[in-house]
């Protein structure tokens, strides 16, 4: 492994996973910052955690059941009120399905 903890290529890949546009300066800065942070995080490898059970919730969750009752939900108008774009009672997004090409 190189002395670089994370490369700019890896950063660009992770940014794609996170759906995040980064400028080339941001990419450089984040590469450096993540490198520093990951080196710091390496400290965890001092600990042998082979037999340790990970903890995901601090409050033991017993799982709750409730009656399946119909209750009023947010009115559609309220739910749509903050949408950047809307139409016919729906959220509007850029076209997802390309237009069908002519047969032939």
């Amino acid at each position, binding site marked *: 492994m190189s002395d670089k903890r994370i490369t700019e290529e890896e950063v660009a890949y992770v940014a794609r996973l996170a759906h995040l546009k*980064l400028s080339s300066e941001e990419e450089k800065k984040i590469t450096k910052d993540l490198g520093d942070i990951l080196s710091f995080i390496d400290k965890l490898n001092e600990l042998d955690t082979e037999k340790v059970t990970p903890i995901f919730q601090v409050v033991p969750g017993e799982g709750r059941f409730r009656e399946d009752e119909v209750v009023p939900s947010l009115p559609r108008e309220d739910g749509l009120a*903050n949408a950047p774009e809307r139409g016919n009672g729906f959220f509007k997004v850029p076209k997802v399905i390309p237009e069908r090409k002519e047969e032939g």
Partner: protein
Amino acid sequence: MELYRMTALELSSLIRKGEVSPSSLVEAVAKRIEEVEEKLSSYVTLTIDEALSEAKRVEERLTKGEELGPLAGIPIAVKDVICTKGIRTTCSSRMLENFVPPYDATVVRKLKEAGAIIIGKTNMDEFAMGSSTENSAFFPTKNPWDTSRVPGGSSGGSAAAVSAGETILALGSDTGGSIRQPAALCGIVGVKPTYGRVSRYGLVAFASSLDQIGPMTRTVADSALLLSVIAGYDPADSTSVDRPVPDYLSALEGDIKGMKVGIPKEYFGEGLDPEVEDKVREAISLLSTLGVEFSEVSLPHTEYAIPVYYLVATAEASSNLARYDGVRYGFRMEGDFSLREMYIETRGMGFGAEVKRRIMLGTYALSAGYYDAYYLKAQKVRSLIKEDFDKAFSEVDLIITPTSPTPAFKLGERVADPLKMYLSDIFTVTTNLAGITGISLPCGFTKENLPVGLQILAPPFSEELMLRLAHRYEQEAGYYKRMPPI
């Protein structure tokens, strides 16, 4: 004394006796805001007009002799990460700059039922990510004790507002110290309740297994009062715990003699400012004279807490912040984009630098090939940190530490170095990782007249014991009487 300097308990009693009207109280706070807000920038949104109308409504009910809630007529500031129906809730982010929630968070509903009057929404680090409020996309908040310094963060606006008398009470949220650290840096009281004690419904999620809403006030008794109002099970938050809510106010009065309090040696080492250490040691001496029994305890995995925190919190954040896609609410980048391009452009433009950095770290830690090495490893070490506390609390009732390793630092001092900023939270993140409760309260001032915070930690759902010790110390030490020179 000016009304804005008084506590909620004092004011509540005066309101009930008819000696102070809610309108005059709101007006006094509004006037104070007018005087100092330009220097502090505590608020993102002010709701003075609505507050005055609400005060009138409380007055009418008072005249009619109706029964009033415990916070009737008391102004409160709400951190701008907590949803308020019809009032813009921005998280100090461009992403939510124009977001107006269609519903109230459970805590806000409870505040209204208790008669509290919302006076505004306070500034914060964007999406609660930061320790100085400098990560606000709008403007930084200044510390009322020295306006060249930060108020701490992420609930810096709430802390500055309470400290300067721009409100009587405030709500903050605490994921790794975001209530307690700014409370310490601004010389006020801040409580991070046990995980599950307060409903998170309507709290914009940062790291769901760590986030809690809590009180920020000038006295421990006011925090007890406010906690009694906001605590409790909520069917809308499956992680809230169904346990009776004690009357925290009446819990303050019990004896503290013979209480066993641990001093963790790991919290008094390298990096701790000597003046901060002195003040905390003085507090320990004072409490000893009151019959509190101190002993040393060990929390051996403390040094691993920051790396664990920054893996767990960023992993959860990367998932929680995936919802900001420019479709249902919030900012959308306009242009001739495909759906995927629209997501990428929107998120690239809508989020600030620290939020991007954390989404990147969290996404990386969860990505294929790294999950075991980073995220899973962190959750295992988190287990060890929790076990440290379990063991310590089998020996002592409470634990006492400094809240922050340093007093308030200068604006700009730590922004360039994220790791240095992260270390501001070194004494507070463990509380969230272990799910326990903690309080910060003032324990003195440095030579430069900057407040120092004392942190008391307690086992899950032991807020009563913790508040009792804090209250007694506060009353003996008397630092709560000091207001910042602004």
